[in-house]
């Protein structure tokens, strides 16, 4: 790891000020992705701004019938929150299956969503639930936020402050974890919301995506039988040592049907 200048931010505004003018500066949340990246010398920030002391970025609030979760809220806190378990149980369950207990004690929702790893779990929930990403400068709808492989709509120095999730009528997330890393080989989040049914897939492609054909079928009939014949095209899906594009396309169907069944329970 190359050395860098280390700063502690006391608030989101403080972090923004510390990052200002530092084009090679990086925010650090839980560090569970950033530190391994620095160790591999895949990044060389001049400055690292630690968000852990920014109290305004943490915490879970019930708001407008849904939930607003601060960017620095750890996966473990989301998984065990009574507020999350009662309002959006699928989100608590998703958080409880990220990595391992030690990763969940450090990793944060803001870090995961900002990082937009193609196999990360939270992006599927954010997209399927039609969440809003609140940043230091604006509000971004989930449909506009994820831009593909590790890319998001965030601008330079712009930080996620919290994420607002509307309460769905029904929702479930089912993932087929890579047996070694626990990241999603394929994960499907299905949500029946006021605005319709949304199906978001992570792990299968270069970034999280929706499956329109399944959404339309489920809007007419919310049952796993309604999507049993829908095939996801293999074009652009990931093909690697863990599985071929065909295998992943097949898994999308299986995980989606399981998610619909789980949401219907």
């Amino acid at each position, binding site marked *: *790891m*190359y*050395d*860098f*200048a*280390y700063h*502690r931010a006391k608030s989101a505004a403080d972090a923004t000020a510390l990052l200002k003018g530092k084009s090679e500066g990086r925010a650090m949340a839980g*560090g*569970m992705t950033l*530190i*391994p990246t*620095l*160790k591999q010398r895949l990044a060389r920030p001049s400055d*690292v701004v*630690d968000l*852990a002391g920014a109290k305004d970025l943490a915490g879970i609030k019930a708001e407008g019938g849904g939930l607003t979760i601060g960017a620095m809220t750890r996966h*473990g806190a989301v998984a065990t929150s009574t507020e999350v378990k009662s309002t959006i149980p699928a989100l608590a369950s998703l958080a409880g299956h990220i*990595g*391992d*207990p*030690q*990763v969940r*004690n*450090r990793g944060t929702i803001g870090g995961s969503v900002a990082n937009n790893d193609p196999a990360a779990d939270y992006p599927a929930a954010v997209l399927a639930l039609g969440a809003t990403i609140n940043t230091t400068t604006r509000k971004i709808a989930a449909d506009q936020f994820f831009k593909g492989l590790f890319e998001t709509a965030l601008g330079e120095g712009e930080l996620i402050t919290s994420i607002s999730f509307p309460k769905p009528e029904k929702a479930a997330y089912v993932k087929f974890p890579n047996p070694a*890393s*626990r990241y999603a080989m394929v994960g499907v989040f299905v949500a029946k919301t006021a605005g319709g049914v949304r199906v978001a897939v992570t792990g299968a492609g270069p970034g999280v995506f929706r499956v329109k054909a399944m959404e339309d079928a489920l809007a007419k009939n919310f049952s796993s039988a309604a999507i049993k014949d829908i095939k996801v095209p293999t074009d652009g899906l990931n093909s690697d040592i863990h599985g071929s594009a065909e295998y992943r396309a097949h898994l999308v169907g299986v995980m989606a049907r399981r998610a619909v069944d789980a949401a219907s329970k």
Partner: protein
Amino acid sequence: MSISVSMTVNGKAVSGKVEARTLLVQFLRENLSMTGTHVGCDTSQCGACVVHVDGQSVKSCTMLAVQAEGAKVMTIEGLAPSADKLHPMQEAFRDNHALQCGFCTPGMVMSAVDMVKRHNYQLDEATVRRELEGNLCRCTGYHNIVKAILAAAPAMKAAGV
């Protein structure tokens, strides 16, 4: 860039000079010469480096020393109540032959103690296996580790630790 850090390690106030990039595990092993905490993979996978920071288990190879500023850190060296008495978890690992080479053991024990407390001393086998996701052992095949943790849970409760 040299930075001063201060924290409590196993109940003792410690401080030292580190670089921003110094990992917590390096600080423990190299600055404090506490080599009980191991580095197995250095890639956040194996859990040999697990310690408790403010009561929560973390991988100390994936935390900077500066991130532990002001924190209460507990390592395997701080677990036993005295030089001649082991913690119930350590005792259970010995009784159940839960280690062979012993390399993974410090991290296993620290993860296990955290696991038992988070589950309020009530665990079943499936939960223990799932909770051990972040700890790899290349010797034992895990069976005896799982047995040890299941045995230690009531022993910890009885001992009030």
